């Protein structure tokens, strides 16, 4: 494969695929024409939707008021007739309903605006100024007599819900307003005239524009009565004509949040649209054109063939994403819709810069899925038939993200497509959180890698060339031949399965109310299952050579030097002890340094809680801590990272690169720490991973690494047995850091360990080369 990956050949192969895609007018149509057409149209549709969502429904609207019984209905009708009378006398309402501009996610835009535009606002209704009343002599309308129009804008019809309470009907959306109780009293004047004094207790749906508007209109109407009577009876101090107590009920629905989710969905759908045609054309299209057979008859590895196609599809998808992102940015910025959708910040250029990498990651993921789906299709038509269900299936969870109050929780971070949608939405509204974001990005990349591996195995397979009945199921079949170690493809598939399970499991375990001892045991159990048993079973199922994959031999050196075996072994194990003796101090200092630099995730305010947790931790017997936090992790993690992962990388890569990649992966997995993201753990763990990888490659055995890992973890946890003052006393310096002499000694110990290891595992080839 090397000759295809070097000399710019891969680049030329990619260029061929890109040329083929980009010279096709259909690709260009999707790439350029679609964004030009879609966003202005979408913008118009959104503007209409937005007006409907956040402002008063205009025109002759009729609101439905629910009342508990007929008596209440009569009181309401009476009040509404009073408003008609006031209006007919030419009284203008002192409350104006302003169509509010959005938004502050935590406040009710409507009520806020009402209060802002009219300083008296709701209070005006409760003012104790009224006038000597006039008997209006009006009868009370029957509730069924039709809607009562209070002014030119709004009309109210009054209903008595059958079988349910008004509150339930309101919650169900059958009513716009619910009046729980209404009373009217006559306030008599000495001249025999009386005025009605109303009191209402009502409810409306919080965040529902229609219900909020109904409430505002009703309040405005009632204010009319107050204004009318205070104008008539100027100077007389009376109780308020209308006393109105309103209550917002239900979970607040923020119409903006759901609308803000539309944009990422549209962007992602358009990115998909851009990728679909090239994905089909470069896979099923090859077969339909009759170029597939000639291509796969060449010695070029299928993975390389597919990789070049993948690069082309991702490039077209990213170009589509850029075109769409730019078009949407221009449309939203020019039309002012950005602010309406996304708040005061609008759709800033910075937001655009943040969203772009997400779209690239998504393009990388979905292109791989598309290629996997199309790779075993024999024609364009067949590929389309496979893709349509995939698109529909992915749309369903995508629509979930449009629902209001869907929070980007940690667990949703690993759900493909949904995670990127929610993350984009949160970035746009400025509310993103680190842990789900990390999970979203990492899991999407892992899924992409796994899908690409699947695609490369399906691409040009027998099913695509000879018409036999083989398909997806072949991938899961147990291989007939024995393979010595896993390859990178198998690793990608295993990681794509492992990461979500690991992530969910550590999160759930973090949420359970467990004692410290139980937590330690659960964590150890998880490690055993995910890093020891599962890869073990996977290796057995795939007929791998277990001894070779997991470096199980005590002395794996294949080309030993002249040293006797016991001396060689002694050297290797002594080296691991020496390295462990130094590494834990280096790891501790690196962790401290990174925390000091602000990479720490431990909140200072939580220090007290942390101290308490530490003191409880000190009560746990040390043998249990050693077992669950040092010995079991050492065995399981070495088994997986220096066994499975390193072997997989070594199957294709130079050992140095294999060690580096496995160390990076080791670091990444340690960043997810229960339900917090400990970024500061990455570097120290990756350094430990490098040392362990180096040890495994040199010794060709897992056991020295297990020893090093167990001592390293054991010493670090032993340190937690002491409280600050004990540490200070013991170290003879400030409790935060080790004395310089210790640090120098630890570096020296590591260096000596490396030298001892080098000479103990010196192979004849090394001697020759040196």
């Amino acid at each position, binding site marked *: 494969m090397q000759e295809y990956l070097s000399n710019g050949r891969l680049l*030329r*192969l990619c260029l061929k695929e890109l040329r083929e895609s980009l*010279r096709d007018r259909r690709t260009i149509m999707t790439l350029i024409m679609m964004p030009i057409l879609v966003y202005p149209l979408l913008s118009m549709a959104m503007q209409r939707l937005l007006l409907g969502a956040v402002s008063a429904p205009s025109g002759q609207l009729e609101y439905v008021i629910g009342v508990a019984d007929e008596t209440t209905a009569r009181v309401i009708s009476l009040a509404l007739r009073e408003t008609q009378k006031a209006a007919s006398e030419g009284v203008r309402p002192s409350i104006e309903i302003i169509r509010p501009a959005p938004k502050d996610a935590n406040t009710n835009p409507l009520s806020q605006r009402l209060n802002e535009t009219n300083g008296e606002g709701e209070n005006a209704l409760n003012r104790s100024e009224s006038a000597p009343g006039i008997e209006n002599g009006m009868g009370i309308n029957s509730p069924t007599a039709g809607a009562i129009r209070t002014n030119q804008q709004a009309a109210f019809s009054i209903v008595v819900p059958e079988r349910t309470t008004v509150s339930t009907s309101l919650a169900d959306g059958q009513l716009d307003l619910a009046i729980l109780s209404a009373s009217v009293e006559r306030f008599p004047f000495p001249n025999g005239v009386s005025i009605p004094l109303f009191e209402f207790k009502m409810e409306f749906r919080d965040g529902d524009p229609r219900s909020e508007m109904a409430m505002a209109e009703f309040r405005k109407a009632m204010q009319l009565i107050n204004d009318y009577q205070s104008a008539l009876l100027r100077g007389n101090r009376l109780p308020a004509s209308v006393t109105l107590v309103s209550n917002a009920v239900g979970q607040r629905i923020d119409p903006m949040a759901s609308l803000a989710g539309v944009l990422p969905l549209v962007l992602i759908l358009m990115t998909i649209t851009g990728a679909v045609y090239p994905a089909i054309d470069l896979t099923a299209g090859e077969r339909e054109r*009759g170029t597939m057979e*000639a*291509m796969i008859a060449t*010695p070029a590895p299928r993975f390389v*063939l597919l990789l070049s196609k993948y690069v082309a599809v991702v490039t077209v998808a990213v170009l589509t994403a850029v075109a769409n992102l730019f078009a949407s940015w221009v449309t939203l910025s020019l039309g002012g819709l950005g602010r309406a959708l996304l708040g005061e910040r609008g759709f800033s250029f910075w937001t655009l810069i943040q969203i772009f990498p997400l779209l690239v990651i998504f393009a990388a993921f979905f292109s791989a899925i598309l290629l996997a789906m199309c790779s075993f299709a024999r024609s364009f038509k067949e590929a389309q038939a496979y893709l349509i269900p995939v698109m529909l299936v992915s749309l369903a969870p995508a629509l979930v993200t449009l629902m209001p109050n869907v929070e980007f929780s940690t667990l949703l971070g690993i759900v493909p497509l949904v995670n990127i949608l929610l993350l984009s939405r949160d970035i746009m509204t400025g509310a993103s959180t680190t842990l789900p974001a990390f999970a979203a990005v990492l899991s999407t990349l892992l899924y992409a890698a796994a899908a690409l591996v699947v695609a490369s195995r399906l691409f040009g397979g027998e099913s695509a060339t*000879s018409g*036999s009945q083989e398909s997806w199921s072949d991938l899961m079949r147990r291989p007939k031949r024995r393979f010595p170690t896993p390859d990178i493809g198998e690793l990608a598939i295993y990681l794509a399965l492992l990461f979500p399970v690991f992530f969910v499991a550590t999160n759930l375990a973090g949420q359970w109310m467990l004692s410290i001892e139980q937590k330690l045991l659960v964590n150890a159990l998880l490690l055993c299952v995910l890093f020891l048993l599962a890869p073990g079973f996977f290796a057995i199922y795939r007929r791998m050579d277990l001894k070779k994959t997991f470096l199980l031999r005590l002395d794996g050196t294949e080309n030993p030097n002249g040293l006797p075996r016991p001396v060689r072994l002694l050297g290797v194990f002594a080296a691991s002890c020496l390295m462990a003796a130094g590494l834990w101090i280096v790891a501790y200092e690196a962790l401290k340094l990174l925390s000091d630099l602000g990479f720490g995730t431990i909140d200072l305010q939580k220090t007290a809680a942390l101290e308490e947790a530490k003191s409880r931790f000190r009560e746990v017997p040390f043998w249990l801590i050693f077992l669950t936090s040092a010995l079991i992790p050492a065995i399981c993690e070495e088994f997986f990272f220096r066994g499975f992962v390193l072997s997989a990388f070594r199957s294709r890569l130079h050992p140095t690169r294999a060690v580096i990649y496995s160390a990076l992966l080791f670091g990444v997995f340690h960043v997810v720490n229960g339900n917090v993201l400990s970024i500061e753990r990455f570097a120290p763990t990756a350094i430990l991973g490098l040392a362990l990888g180096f040890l495994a490659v040199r010794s060709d055995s897992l056991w020295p690494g297990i020893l090093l890992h167990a001592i390293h973890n054991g010493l670090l946890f032993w340190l937690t047995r002491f409280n600050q003052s004990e540490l200070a006393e013991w170290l003879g310096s400030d409790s935060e850091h080790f004395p310089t002499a210790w640090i120098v000694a630890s570096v020296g110990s590591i260096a000596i360990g490396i030298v001892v290891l080098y000479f103990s595992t010196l192979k004849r080839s090394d001697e020759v080369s040196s």
Partner: protein
Amino acid sequence: MIVAKGLRKQFMVRGQTLVAVDRISFTVGNGEVYGLLGPNGAGKTTTLRMVMGLLDPDEGHVEIGGVRTDIDPIAIRSQLGLISTNDGVYPWLTVREMLMYFADLYAVEVPVAQIRLEELAELLNIRSFLDQRCSTLSTGQKQRVTLARGLMHDPPVMLLDEPTRGLDVVGSQTVFEFIDLLKKRGKSVLLSTHRLDEAERVCDRFGLLHHGTVRYEGTLDDLRTLTGKYHLVDMFIDLIREDRQSVPSPTAGA
């Protein structure tokens, strides 16, 4: 040099086992054209695919230049060239781009590929449309591009799968000239066809396939002696007749 030994391949079709090729053996020497002949469904394409390493034989193996293909099926592919009836071209690429693409797939270095491209352009008369997009080419031009594509990596072994199907007289003549060229360059050519008249013109030796087995093998003279028929067509008609007689049918003897 191609050596096929005891090749066997069966497929599962709707739950039933179908033996496509049943223990076929043959040898093709350098500078020799071997005709793998047979009616549709005789197993010609399956045999070619096994020689190419696109299909793993259930039994037997193939050697190319003395190296077994199942040991390193990928590496052996650079020794093989393939031209098939169904071969298409990339409509959006120019002829030059397409040929250079295949040179890359065969890991031919760019300067070498450029020299070879010039040589083939002359030999197959494609120079005039080298920089034209493939979608604009006529059928005959496309065919010549396909032939050039098969030689971009100058393989010692060439596999031709029904190369004249669907071509007119001029097109077929181009293919015959191409085969002559291959022969002169000392390449081993394995030609699968059901056009027996054409096979007589270009092949040195023949393997007559029927129901997945080689029924007759040898030079045209060998076959004539063996079957007592002069033309390949007559030999085949005999084969098919034998087949019908061996399968009793309700109308047999009527």
